[in-house]
């Protein structure tokens, strides 16, 4: 029988703040951190959710910050916090038995854009020799982090757009199940608050246009939702087999009871209107967990605040959990959409919800529409709840659906 995989540490660097506690307090406060972004001035939607006060040069955990893209700096800071939380010291482990799986939607795109602007202005002489090492998606996350931590086990990078962080966790579970490692570090990062990305998402109609009231712009499942707010951030989870955690005296925060990934094969960016891919992923995760829909106490929704995502996701939740509706929350109301980091950030928040028996509220939800009514959304204030089993949904452009089933140890 497969040994259970447990989460023994999480690190968070999000628009809610630098670190696990700052992020947790922000999501529990239930107030959006979105604001006007001077760097996006002049663009159709100059809104963002940035990590406040993030200066990698001032963080002792981030060395050689000048070499890295912003997304890498965010990840390094989150990784060091996660290791500390798990009580792991890199000098004490066998580096060949530690795996690293990261995910991002866009790698070091901030560096790429800045480099290209310099190139257009001043020519090839202005191109940094670190342009590619900072941009290449594998290097910008798994590559640089493996170097920083001295890891020699398997390391790889996944990219399933906004499900990337969750896909990284699922991939890491596979490495643990196949005995490819004893410890797996899994997470996601993205720093896509850039002029090009903001312009492109605006052109697609994906962003909220509520520029006159930024803090009300991200409103998952609310009747007046009109798109997401572009965010940035990173999260990393420390995973290990239960016996390994026990042997080193580590306290499990949650169990990864099941997981599943599916594809919509419907449209490049629009979700299947019936949520068939998501439904299949929920089924798959529960089957692997040996659980049924009746066991699910809580859902940490993808909840982007776009009309189409929230409609399809609410439909699935309403249809699948008709008998015993779980509580639902959507962190993007507070944090905005952190892209490839979101799946890892929300997995980490779900772990904390289980461990702390508290569900943070969804910001800016006032009233559902016909598409989003009928789900038990936590609003206004944190909700105390003992959670036996929770699901974390993550969906990505490309029709990627991932579901993590996380349980109380």
């Amino acid at each position: 029988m497969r040994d259970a995989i447990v989460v023994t540490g999480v690190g968070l660097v999000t628009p809610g703040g630098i670190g696990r506690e700052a992020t947790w307090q922000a999501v529990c406060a239930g107030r959006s951190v979105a604001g006007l972004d001077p760097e996006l001035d002049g663009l159709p939607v100059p809104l963002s959710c940035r990590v406040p006060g993030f200066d990698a040069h001032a963080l002792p955990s981030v060395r050689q910050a000048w070499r890295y893209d912003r997304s890498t700096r965010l990840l390094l800071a989150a990784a060091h916090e996660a290791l500390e939380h798990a009580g792991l010291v890199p000098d004490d482990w066998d580096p060949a038995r530690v795996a690293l799986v990261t995910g991002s939607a866009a790698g070091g795109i901030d560096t790429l854009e800045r480099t290209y602007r310099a190139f257009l202005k001043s020519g090839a002489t202005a191109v940094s020799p670190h342009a590619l090492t900072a941009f290449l998606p594998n290097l910008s996350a798994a590559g640089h982090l493996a170097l920083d931590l001295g890891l020699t086990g398997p390391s790889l990078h996944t990219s399933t757009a906004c499900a990337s962080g969750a896909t990284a966790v699922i991939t890491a579970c596979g490495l643990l199940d196949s005995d490819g490692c004893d410890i797996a570090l899994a997470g996601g990062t993205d720093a896509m608050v850039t002029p090009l990305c903001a312009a492109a998402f605006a052109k697609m109609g994906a962003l909220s246009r509520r520029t006159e009231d930024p803090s009300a712009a991200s409103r998952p499942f609310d009747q007046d939702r009109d798109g997401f707010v572009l965010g940035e951030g990173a999260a990393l989870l420390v995973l290990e087999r239960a016996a390994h955690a026990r042997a080193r005296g580590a306290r499990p925060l949650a169990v990864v009871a099941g997981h599943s990934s599916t594809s919509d094969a419907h449209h490049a960016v629009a979700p299947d209107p019936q949520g068939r891919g998501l439904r299949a992923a929920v089924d798959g995760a529960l089957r692997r967990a040996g659980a049924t829909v009746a066991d699910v106490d809580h859902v940490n929704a993808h909840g982007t605040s776009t009309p189409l995502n929230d409609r399809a996701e609410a439909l699935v939740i309403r249809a699948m959990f008709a008998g015993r509706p779980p509580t639902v929350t959507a962190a993007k109301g507070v944090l905005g959409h952190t892209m490839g980091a979101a799946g890892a950030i929300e997995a980490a928040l779900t772990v904390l919800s289980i461990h702390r028996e508290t569900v943070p509220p969804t910001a800016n939800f006032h009233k559902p529409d016909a598409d989003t009514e009928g789900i038990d959304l936590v609003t206004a204030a944190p909700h105390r709840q003992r959670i036996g089993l929770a699901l974390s949904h993550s969906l990505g452009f490309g029709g990627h659906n991932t579901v993590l089933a996380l349980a109380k140890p």
Partner: protein
Amino acid sequence: MDTVREHLKTVLVDKFEVPADKVTLQARLTDLDLDSLAVVELYLTLQEHWNIPLDDGDANNELTVDDVARTVDGLLGADTAGHDAGPGTEQTAGPGAGPGPAHA
């Protein structure tokens, strides 16, 4: 220490995270933990700051801090106004000076 060397030390400490006490004029860049890519990055940083056509084809990490400073001196016309000219002044840069103003 003159302006070029002061600035070089500041860049090595602030950007490249070299401990200040290791930065001497005789120190080789490799001894300051600058690898080949970092040395090219250093040249790019100096090129932009001083607005000079510093050729990174000559960059290697066996050079000392003073070697690099002397190369910058030469491009700035060191014996005239170079050391104290400050960054990005087209007037003090030699012929064929770099593309556009520094810090643009």
